[in-house]
């Protein structure tokens, strides 16, 4: 696994951790929105393609939500 991949995991988790005090549901939505707004397409693609089980729960749910949204809009 490239160091870039590792950084993406760390970034996603870090966002999630900093948002978790807002409560689980809001934290998931805020994490997803943050990634959607600030990540370059190749970064998004990178994390979508990753093994999401290594992520913290909030981060994982956020990425899953983003993936679903992306597939929907591509459909």
């Amino acid at each position, binding site marked *: 696994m490239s160091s870039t991949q590792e950084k993406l995991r760390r970034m996603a988790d870090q966002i999630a951790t900093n948002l978790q005090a807002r409560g689980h549901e809001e934290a998931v939505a805020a994490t997803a929105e943050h990634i959607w707004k600030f990540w*370059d397409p190749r970064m998004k693609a990178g994390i979508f393609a990753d093994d999401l089980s290594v992520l913290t729960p909030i981060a994982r749910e956020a990425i899953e939500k983003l993936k679903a949204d992306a597939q929907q809009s591509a459909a």
Partner: protein
Amino acid sequence: MGYERQADFGTPEVKSDQQVTLTIDGREVTVPAGTTVMRAAAECGGSIPKLCATDSLNQFGSCRLCLVEIEGARGTPASCTTPVGPGMVVHTQTPRLEKLRKGVMELYISDHPLDCLTCSANNDCELQDQAANVGLRDVRYGYQGENHMGQDVDTSNPYFDFSPDKCIVCSRCVRACGETQGTFALTVDGRGFASKISAGQSGDDFLSSECVSCGACVQACPTSALMEKSVVEHGKPERAVVTTCAYCGVGCTFRAEMKGEQLVRMVPWKDGKANRGHSCVKGRFAWGYANHQDRILKPMIRDSIDQPWQEVSWEEALSYTAAKIKSIKETYGARALGGITSSRCTNEETFLVQKLIRGGFGSNNVDTCARVCHSPTGFGLSQAFGTSAGTQDFDSVMDADVILLIGANPTDGHPVFASRMKRRLRQGAKLIVIDPRRIDLVRSPHINAEHHLPLQPGTNVAVLTSIAHVIVTEGLADEAFIRERCDWDEYQDWARFVSDEKHSPEYLEAVTKVPAETVRQAARLYATGGNGAIYYGLGVTEHSQGSSTVMAIANLAMVTGNIGRRGVGVNPLRGQNNVQGSCDMGSFPHELSGYRHLSDSATRQMFEKDWGVSLDPEPGLRIPNMLDAAVDGTFRAIYIQGEDILQSDPDTHHVAAGLAAMDLVIVHDLFLNETANYATVFLPGSTFLEKDGTFTNAERRIQPVRKVMEPANGYADWEITQMLANAIGCDWNYTHPSEILDEIARLTPTFTGVSWERLEREGSLQWPVNEKFPDGSPIMHVDGFVRGKGKFVVTEYVPTDERTGPRFPLLLTTGRILSQYNVGAQTRRTANVVWHHEDVLEMHPTDAENRGLADGSWARLASRTGETTLRVVVTDRVAPGVVYTTFHHPATQANVVTTDYSDWATNCPEYKVTAVQVTPSNGPSEWQEEYNAQAERSRRIAHVEPAE
């Protein structure tokens, strides 16, 4: 264009609601009550002789030259200390006054050398002026009595000389050092005839004294007693152009005083609204880099970085570069290209670079140095208030009652603003400092901080949340303000959160290392001490919780109602001169100018229509992501204008690896900087003296930069970007930066009312300037937040992943010092090196002793990322367990030690917290030697004539 000193009204301006009308020399004058007779006379065009008075200092009444006659009053009062009265009838020129003044002047001149014609102050000397005004024709005492002639000139300061025999002991320098600068380095020694001006203790010269070389004394000196060395060398300037300083985010305005093509001196402009006539050693004196021999004046290219540079024509450089860009784009797509805008360049130049990248390259991979300094400010304040900028103008500090200073060291980083803050503190405002180091403001002459919270680096959020805890739980919140201005539900959620016992000072003391009682006292003072103003710096933003800290600060301002009027607010102290502007101009990968996200299709379409291009709607890469992508091979080419990311960005090894992996690194700069070691195209840049444009300072003040000389490299930077754009197929036709500014105004709602013509007329404008705020916005959020309701955001303390441990038991934090600026590219090329010729490591005596290190020892500084060596300074300014250094010198490269940890929201690097170990060393590290060898190799230039 001619040269004339700025008008001097003798005593400071007085503000009053009451107007007083009097008669001076037969003319009726109306001035605010409290104005002196001297100033009233000056305002109606008269000029009462004076020597000890000047309008930047409080009246002193010592020289006895400004006597006047007032009908019905006895004697001849000093006009500088006499306030106007209604109906007063003043005569400033009478035979009696003429005689008295000649007597006074006779005494001054009998003890003054007669070498006017070879004196450096000749024709710019107030003693000469006043002698001319007074019309003394004969000195009865002769010049043979006891006098002060022939004393040695103190030439120790690199920028100005002190000639005691030219001194008339008017005390203006002493008063300027105290009142204007707030350093109190100068004193009058002795009494009566024996009085003399002295820098510091006996035996001190100016260099060895406490003097910080701000130039206020030189500015105040009426004679050549204190005189710039450059005037001594070149003579009197012949014209003056008002422009804006290119150093820090204060944005001082200066008169660039010229003689032909020679800059003779920079003198602070009294009408400058950011600096109000004051200056610091950098802006006032450290401009010599502009014509330093290291400066590159011709374009250069090379096929690879192990080759020497080839000087080529502009045409060749541009066609070479354009061909490379096109080829990379064809092969790897637009998203393989990107660039970095410069916070040292003008708004117009920055706007063009991001336009080139988005519209020309076709990607949104544009970022700027704010990424590594204040990106959390933009993010955090935007979340809380709706605007990515500070809320106040600098003048606002004069109405503050409590100043909360967090992670900033203004006396070094923003010295001119620090002087105003100190003036306000001397007037009685209270100061709370939250900083791991005991910065100068904690204790300095006539300043004594009420509270210093020397927190453990990385615990900002914990400290601020505990302050909020005290305010809410002790019932100090301003509920009326919150109900009116903020979202009440969000506030209640937040209040519940901070009220939790886990956020009490007592609970968090173990983490923050700040005594709980100190936190409580500070919280009470801020919440109840009157107008509370928060000022903060990179000690807030450069953390993994930088954005959270900014939001925590916003929460404090809102909960206490300290927002939306003079004297309060949230005030980020911006680093580089145009960091605010470069952010405003759309330098971030996810947004267009005016902080509008790319996903807003109406905005995007406005730009697409105006520019005649289609824009990528997806965010681009941030700087660290660009470097990652370069290593991964998906990012291949970068255009870097006026930044040196190799030296300034964290984790040097990683930056170098990223740059080395790219196919094309274009460096556009004054010098062959560290980044250029990895470049194959070098485009020589122009200095701020060589172009027109605007800078925006930390108070959102857009100020004109004016060309005072032709670009030594041939073109202003905006012209070079335009040539590069046209070389890759754009069709740009800007003939003056004002046209770019018009485009910015057209496309940016907060800039609608800005134009070059209006700036020429009004001097400066604070954005937003538009239909709603036609005169600009000195204070923001007055009648409501830009976002509507103020937003309380829950900020949980999350410790950084960077932890001390047995291998790396100390915490390194970094900062800067007064005499140097950023990576030092400019200041290292000036005489400022006398104050700081190398980066050193500050270390607590206990930590030093434990490691066998003494003051001046060579030490090895190592982190998980890398290591370097530097000298140790042993000091109790840092707490045990904390070490501190600066990053001004490439020989040290402090960033080889810093990590790639960064702010969760913006990736702003965590410069302020690195776990390190320090051990004795006997010289530069292996890495330093290798680096230096590589840099030297990379900087070779093959001096052949270009094949034009």
